[in-house]
Each structure stands twice: as structure tokens, then as C-alpha cells.
């Protein structure tokens, strides 16, 4: 199962990371590597678009938390785009919907 990751850095200061597929123990490391790479390259405002994600479990949550902490430590932030009820539910039952800022569209995240 492959994880699709597309990076769009054409709208500074934001970098949009669109994720597709299933984020679990097998694929989450690829997302972690990408977030670490972006932070090390100086990205500060990272928007992770989860609308193409079909499945996300606690391993994926851990990667997003790690990315957010890393970016906030650099005076940046990691925000999310997600409208899928099944994915939002994972954030809600862990209470992490209150730790992350979650937008309905990429445009809203860029304006936020």
C-alpha cells in the first residue's frame, strides 16, 4: 500500500502537503520523513491536506503531532485540511481536534 504525498510550495509562506491513501504503521514513516525534510528546509507554515486519505490510525496521528511540535518549536505551525467524517472522528475521540487547527478547504487554511 503506497502513500501519495504531493508538496506544493507555490503559495508562500505556506507549504501544502496533500496526502493520499492509507496512513498506518507501514506508511506513516514516509509522511514523517517528508515533514522533517520540509522543516529542515525552512518551511514554517505547513498545511497537511488529509482529504485524500482513506484511513488514518494512531500512528498517523503521532506523525502529525510530531510535525506540529517540530514546527511550533521553530515559530511555525502545522494545520490540517479535512472534511471526511471517518478521519475527523479519529481526532475527535482522542481530543486532538482541539490541539490541531482543522480547516475545511486548503484555501481556508491558507487564509487562516
Amino acid at each position: 500500500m503506497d502513500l501519495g504525498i504531493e508538496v506544493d510550495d507555490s503559495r508562500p509562506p505556506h507549504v501544502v502537503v496533500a496526502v493520499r491513501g492509507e496512513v498506518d504503521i507501514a506508511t506513516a514513516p514516509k509522511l514523517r520523513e517528508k515533514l522533517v525534510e520540509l522543516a529542515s528546509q525552512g518551511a514554517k507554515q505547513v498545511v497537511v491536506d488529509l482529504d485524500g486519505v482513506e484511513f488514518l490510525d494512531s500512528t498517523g496521528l503521532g506523525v502529525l503531532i510530531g510535525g506540529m511540535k517540530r514546527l511550533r518549536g521553530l515559530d511555525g505551525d502545522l494545520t490540517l485540511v479535512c472534511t471526511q467524517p471517518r478521519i475527523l472522528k479519529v481526532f475527535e475521540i482522542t481530543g486532538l481536534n482541539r490541539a490541531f487547527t482543522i480547516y475545511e478547504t486548503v484555501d481556508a487554511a491558507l487564509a487562516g
Partner: protein
Amino acid sequence: MEGAADRVLCLEIPPRAEFVAVARLVVSTAAKSRRALADDRVADLTLALSEACTNAIEAHGAKEEADRVTVRVDEDDERLVVTVEDRGPGFDLMELPTHPAVTDPNRLNFERGLGIPIIRNLVDEVTFTSDEGGTTVTLVLRCPPSIAGMGPDELLELEDVDLEAAWDDEVTQ
């Protein structure tokens, strides 16, 4: 397993990350074919299973154990029961960290350990048994059997019925 008479399937997977997706696919397919479950409930079960398999595989990694992780699906009239058994070093449930409230900034120090709270939230019952020989997680969904108690074999037999003749009988009565 107490009370659940019928084994739906037994799957053994290597304790490797890429096989968790296989377990999700097999168990969700079995659940949908055997029980009258809404899509959301199947998604809940699939996520809980994924968390249990993830923990099982990580447990094997901790012990460098090459044994398989066993996933079983059983059912009775009222329940679908999914069991994930690993042969890792076991753990003490009482020693799991308690997460701070979500309003506490320290909450974000917990990048791991979210799996068991997620499991507890998604299934009707969960039990953990663990010792130095491994851990077994049992996930229970309370749900009716598929279509009026008929399993796939009985449903397949239905296809042999001459529906046109049955319809004619119905309208002529």
C-alpha cells in the same frame, strides 16, 4: 472463546508493518459479509483492529520475535468477536500512561500510546490479557447476523430459487 460458536476465519500474518493493511482488508470484508453492519461500524472495527495489530507488531519488534500474529474472527447470534494474539513480551495494562487533558499543553508529549484509548472508544467491549508469552486483545461488536440470520451459504442457496415462479405463485394467491 466463550459463547461464540462459529469461527469465521483465522489469519496468521508476519509481524511486519505492511501486513496490517492485509488484516484490515480481510477482517472488514468478513465483517461486512457476515453481519448486518452499517459502514461506520465496519470502519470502527477496522480502525480498532488496525490499532491492535500495530501494537502486536511493535511488541514483536521489541522482542525481536519472528513468530506470527494471529487474527481470528468468530461470531454468535449477538456478537462479532475479533481476536489479535501476539507472541511479544507482554505488557502491564496498569502501567500505561494516563494522557493529560486535551487542554493541557503536555498532551502533545504523547505521540504514542493513543491506540488503546482509540480501541476502547470504538468497540462495544475490549479485553486485554497479557503475560510474558504474549498479549491477546479481544474486540467485541454487538450486532445482528446478516439478513435475517442467514449466512452466505444460505444466501447463495436463495439464488437457486426460481424467483419468477415464486412471484407467479404470490400474485395468483
